[in-house]
């Protein structure tokens, strides 16, 4: 395809040259295809050598060492950052492990303290209860005694009252005085 195009281009060039020989003013080298015009070689080679040579010097002295340095620096930076991160991570892991261990120890300690406190409180409570119970028992006993004595006293009073009442009844009815002692003796015996 490109061959056909080049040949058509040559054909077009042929037209162009005939056209130029007829009219155009510019000095052209007839029939010569510009890339093959030998008088164009020297100026191109001269400037190519100058420009490419300068470019080579600039690239090899400045640009490539610089870009290489940038890439190398970045690699080193990434590697060192990764290393630092890895170190930090292992440190953090160690700290976490230490923390866990500490926590576990503290928890055990706290549980021990709690248990001890519980025991102490339980013992204290038991003692208090014992004391309170014994005091209460003492009080109950005293109260029972008091009740019993009050009862016997009250019963005794009832007898006396009955004897008195009987004596006064007899006196009212008969007008005779009754010996209270005998009455009391009788009352107790009649019981």
């Amino acid at each position, binding site marked *: 395809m490109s061959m056909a195009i*080049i040949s058509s*281009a040559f054909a077009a060039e042929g037209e162009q040259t005939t056209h130029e020989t007829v009219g155009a003013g510019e000095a052209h080298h007839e029939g010569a295809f510009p890339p093959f015009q030998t008088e*164009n*070689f020297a100026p191109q080679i001269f*400037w*190519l050598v100058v420009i490419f040579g300068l470019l080579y010097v600039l*690239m090899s002295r400045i*640009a490539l060492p*610089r870009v290489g340095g940038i890439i190398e620096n*970045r690699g080193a930076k990434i590697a060192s950052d990764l290393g630092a991160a890895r170190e930090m991570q292992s440190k953090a892991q160690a700290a976490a492990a230490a923390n866990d261990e500490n926590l576990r120890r503290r928890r055990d300690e706290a549980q021990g303290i709690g248990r001890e406190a519980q025991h102490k409180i339980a013992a204290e409570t038991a003692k208090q209860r014992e004391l309170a119970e014994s005091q209460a028992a003492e009080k109950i006993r005293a109260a029972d005694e008091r009740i019993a004595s009050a009862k016997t006293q009250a019963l005794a009073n009832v007898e006396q009252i009955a004897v008195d009442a009987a004596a006064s009844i007899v006196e009212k009815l008969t007008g005779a005085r009754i010996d209270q002692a005998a009455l009391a003796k009788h009352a107790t015996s009649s019981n």
Partner: protein
Amino acid sequence: MNPEEAAAKSNPIEQFELHRLWPFEINGVETSFTNASLFMLLAALGVVALMILATSKKAIVPGRVQAMAEMLYEFVAGMVRQTAGTEGMKFFPFVFTLFAFILIANLIGLVPYTYSVTSQIVVTFAFAIVVISLVVVYGLYRHGFGFLNLFVPHGVPLPVLVVLVPIEIISFLSRPVSLSVRLFANILAGHITLAVFGGFVVMLLGAGAWAALAPVPILAIVALYALELLVACLQAFVFSVLTCVYLNDAIHPGH
């Protein structure tokens, strides 16, 4: 625009003409500064802008252009290392300069009204001669006459060698020609094709009712332009890969 001017504009060869912008000579050799020199300079300045100005900040986190410069660097470095080995890295600056210069020159040449430096056989041939001279000089310096092993493939029986060695020699000698003509012809043909299709547009526009067909060659130009972008990059790549392959021969001549 009268028809004559239109025809002159559509001449596909005109774009390759050299215009002496600053004529002068040194010791009788013409060294005029021409439009070709101007675009060589622009290509070189483009490379400098990309590789030196854009990297001046030396940023750890690169900007866009610096990233491009680094990509180009790593691309060429990888290419040299793969084809010519670690030892080939001593030619890295040369291959890089060659690749970057040809690439930027090709790309600049695709901008309308510019000049394609690599469409001149003398330029591509000069590059090829430099490459081949480098190969020969380094090969002889490094291996002495052992470099001539290049022409003697290993493990081939003697009768075959009689035939093979001349073929190897001819193929070696044709390298500068194939290397330079490949780049030159690709760029030249591409530019001529673009200009021819551009000429079709002008012709159709000047042909009355046929002007309705004028968009067709324009579409063709768009497609060709995409192809030419590919060719511009590909030919720069091919030129430098072959340079690496030839340098590899100089470094390891024993096949």
